[in-house]
């Protein structure tokens, strides 16, 4: 099992949209 860890998520907006079964990433949204 690969794991995308929290060091790699820092300062990146991570959206958990469970009803629509999708995970979003947005750079520049976490100033």
């Amino acid at each position, binding site marked *: *099992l*690969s*794991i995308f860890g929290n060091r*790699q998520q820092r*300062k990146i907006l991570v959206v*958990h949209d469970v*009803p629509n079964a999708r995970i979003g990433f947005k750079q520049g949204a976490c100033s």
Partner: protein
Amino acid sequence: ARNINQHIQTVSVDQLRPPRECTAGKGLQGKTTLKLVDRHGPCAPFHQKTGSADDGKRDSEELLRQDQQRVDWIHSRTASLPLSPKKNIEDLLLPEATTQVPAQTGSSLGSGNFIVDVGLGTPKQAFNLVFDTGSDLSWVQCDPCLISCYQQQGPRFSPSASSTYRNVPCSAAECAEAKLESGLNGCSTSGCIYGITYGDNSLSVGFLSQDTLTITPNDVVPGFTFGCGHRNQGLFGMTGGMFGLGRSKLSVPSQTANKFGGVFAYCLPTASVPGSLAFGPDSSYSSAQFTPLLTGSQPFYYLTITGISVGGQLLPVSSSIFTTSGTIIDSGTVITRLPPTAYSALRSAFRTFMAKYPLSQPSLILDTCYDLSNYTTVQYPLIEFHFQGGTNVLLDFYNIFFVPSSSQACLAFAPTSSDSS
């Protein structure tokens, strides 16, 4: 950081080092937003400044050890391995059970990297809880502490001081759900007993309970189901317990789905700048890049990596390497774990770009570390992750490096044990 070209950047070595001060951050917009802070950084409410560089190195090594325990725990959950201890859950609340489940020194869930401040009860009692997308049931340390509790900042939750508290009866659907999620539960005359063990003998056992959850002053959730822990062991730091953001029915997103639509977003903090956790959809999310969340694969959030680029060059790794065993995104695991074949290609490409810097001793699970003591800046390749659906996530220096000591910087990735496990 100063642009050299599109894929190679330069950063001051000072910027890599752990910060000593907390600075203000810009939180996510939206009505229901909580501040997230790094438990180990200067923004944590119970942060203790380390005295020397050696202290910092020891802390880093401990964090990496706990991170590996976290990975082992995740694997045990995905493999449905039997959880220890194999004991009757009711017995864990008996005084004679005191020595049955010793907390191991240096062992913990390892998820305690970020904390949020929420309230429980009426009137509200406030707690710093561990923010964890890999956990489902939220729990707090409760009074009375029947067997053992760890030290936390501030008082434990007092059920008797809340006018809206109630124990969940054994016949309730939530009790059956807690058993599904934790594999352990029982029944007493006082109600449903839950038990969560984390594979390393850290645990929380107590009564499954309901009370009002206060996320923000304007966002209260009556009848929120959580664990009222009367026996809590392990190294959960000074936190009051767990805030579970996993996928099951008892997780915070599921229990608040009527109010927030099952959507949450976060900006994870750096050590020196707080991040934020927001509930509910927001129009600003429409410009995010989305990748499919694999359904029917609880308890974790599964997605699909299709490739990785280093310095703008796609690694020669088949996408099947990533899909064979699958990938989860987890807030509690620090270091990204990759199949050995993918990690080897990443390491090789990264080392090629960093060839002018001297390698130093490995730091536990991190085998690509550099001695930067004679440098004021370091030039590094950007790393980009490619996910199913054409979603690309570009990583910068704060995503790429882990800094165990003031002169050492390591590639913050590690291999799993096998490509096919």
